[in-house]
């Protein structure tokens, strides 16, 4: 329906998770739990970024498209587009 660019989401999410995982640790206050909090931030950033990246890469060059019922086609065509 709408054209989506690939570069823009990549830039946005890489920056976001990069801030969380790389810049975030510098701002954790000193205390007994500093190490654990930094580990958590980095691990969260890595896991969530990787998961999102896999999802968008899998859809980048689809080899086949969705198979729709004729009612759905009619509905989507005339009511959404």
């Amino acid at each position: 329906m709408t054209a989506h660019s690939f570069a823009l989401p990549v830039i946005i999410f890489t920056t976001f998770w990069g801030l969380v995982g790389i810049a975030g640790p510098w701002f954790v206050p000193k205390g007994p739990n500093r190490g654990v909090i930094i580990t958590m931030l980095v691990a969260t950033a890595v896991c969530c970024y990787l998961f999102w990246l896999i999802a968008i890469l899998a859809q980048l060059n689809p080899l086949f498209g969705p198979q729709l019922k004729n009612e759905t086609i009619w509905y989507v065509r005339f009511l959404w587009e």
Partner: protein
Amino acid sequence: MGSMFRSEEVALVQLFLPTAAAYTCVSRLGELGLVEFRDLNASVSAFQRRFVVDVRRCEELEKTFTFLQEEVRRAGLVLPPPKGRLPAPPPRDLLRIQEETERLAQELRDVRGNQQALRAQLHQLQLHAAVLRQGHEPQLAAAHTDGASERTPLLQAPGGPHQDLRVNFVAGAVEPHKAPALERLLWRACRGFLIASFRELEQPLEHPVTIGQKIRKITDCFHCHVFPFLQQEEARLGALQQLQQQSQELQEVLGETERFLSQVLGRVLQLLPPGQVQVHKMKAVYLALNQCSVSTTHKCLIAEAWCSVRDLPALQEALRDSSMEEGVSAVAHRIPCRDMPPTLIRTNRFTASFQGIVDAYGVGRYQEVNPAPYTIITFPFLFAVMFGDVGHGLLMFLFALAMVLAENRPAVKAAQNEIWQTFFRGRYLLLLMGLFSIYTGFIYNECFSRATSIFPSGWSVAAMANQSGWSDAFLAQHTMLTLDPNVTGVFLGPYPFGIDPIWSLAANHLSFLNSFKMKMSVILGVVHMAFGVVLGVFNHVHFGQRHRLLLETLPELTFLLGLFGYLVFLVIYKWLCVWAARAASAPSILIHFINMFLFSHSPSNRLLYPRQEVVQATLVVLALAMVPILLLGTPLHLLHRHRRRLRRRPADRQEENKAGLLDLPDASVNGWSSDEEKAGGLDDEEEAELVPSEVLMHQAIHTIEFCLGCVSNTASYLRLWALSLAHAQLSEVLWAMVMRIGLGLGREVGVAAVVLVPIFAAFAVMTVAILLVMEGLSAFLHALRLHWVEFQNKFYSGTGYKLSPFTFAATDD
């Protein structure tokens, strides 16, 4: 890094406790909970230890306490919990507590005994009175005996026409079910000369004088209570009055007794709770003292204990303070040890649950890398990959949030239900699991199995329809039509956040999703396992085994990444570089991967990139070359080093060492000492004992485990796909079978609204029961397995033991 990275440093300390102050010192240490005592008298039986008499006294006291507690419970009272801090009392107080307790117990026993006796007496009197009252109206069948309802009076009826005969009366009471038997026996024994009358029977019979004795003996046999039954009515009346008076007095005495009993119980209630706590602590202190060895020359006890190095100053201060009161001084100093110290990892209430699930597999060895800080995030993440649904994740998150916000309420803490306690202890775990599930739910684009269009879809149906001439007539003829990404304008770009919502409308939804999720599982698995191997680097460096970096970690990483990292590379390459234009002849990764190992070639499967076969062959050969390095590298290195050391040392010292080792079999443990030396200082003696066959065997097992494990563990991560598929399908079925039918019923708003209430109730109950509880437990279990087996077997041995300090804390709760 906080102390969760690896265990804190734990040292063996030797405590010198002068006999006068030993008790106070140990009691103080118990309050603080800093040290774990080692049993120095392990070879001595429990009955031969020094303080066995005191321990026995405490145990006797505890028995008395149990008796008192039982009495309190029998009286229907509840013991109040002990209030305030109650330190272990000094030994001289034990005597006082013992005396008081014994006195109370004795009083209680006496009072109870009196009460029973008085009650029995009262009962007898009441029975007698009832029998006498019955005698007044012998022919009345409906007379009731008060207070003796289980006994039937047995009386003789004075026969009217036989007044001239001498009649004796024997009156008593017998249990109803014995009455017929008694009557039969009496009749037979007295040869018919008997009037036996029960309340129900009214058969006047004859009865002569001489058989009174027989009747008495028989009634004794039947355990009847026999009472004197006077002939004259006035005498009987007099006897009745006397009985009534007696029973009244007795009842007053009984009342007094019961008042005294409740007084005694009141004193028990005051004494018992603090007494129990104190005696328990005292017994614990004596048991700890029993573990110390006695130094008779210095008149003090020597104890060995494990203590965290950080707590050593606190320990010394505690010893100083408590022994100062007695005027002596107790000291503690650190001694070197050969045994593996216990592991101590300090946690707070957030990290405790994650450390708990790691420890459930096995407590880490002393100072090896702790997987828990990473598990805090990766466990909820892998759970969420299998559970991904915004709605379900939100429900789980809110439930956990409610528990977290209410965690300080006393009602919540005091709950006894075990299942609730299990959920409550894991509230932070559930919180993170819910949070990550919301995120993965957005990526999977599933909210109670419905997709949401946060952004518009990237697939254009209109473009496909216009370009392929899909008129209404055409559509009516064909039920299913596929969008072709090759057609211009149909596919407009990847959905920026998650899976495109058009797929939830598609019939071939699963074809796409399966491919996506399987590849995702393999990628996540390879990354997780590679991370595990990398964590092993920290272990090797810390324990001073740098040779293992080159001879184990490097080959392992090469093997893993060369084969399965390459698979991940193929997956990503195909995603990026294979276009829809030649979709029909798209290369199959699976066939390429199989051919890679078989060194064969499928002509129909085109190459992904030029020179692919050369690259693949190189990688396989490289990986296979790593196997002998892994198998033989470390053993050969160790043997070489061992031989070099032996050569350097003079021969006679070598003899001495060997002889010394024969006496201490413990020193030559392969598991701890020979493989992993503690950095900075171990005797050469320990290394001298190196059995080549054992080292080779150990390494062979490790190699096979790693290489075969690589393959099977990578496949094992496919459970991420399997469970997320199951969850999605269950969710979908529930929606389609329950809610969709409910929403589709009735066109009028009124009907639909009424019908939806029970339908939604069913939907909600089944969502919680099947999808949240059952699927949640299932995903939890599988995420746990992935951590325990696939991740931890790359670097974690888990064969340590925890530092369990000597503490009274359990009794204070």
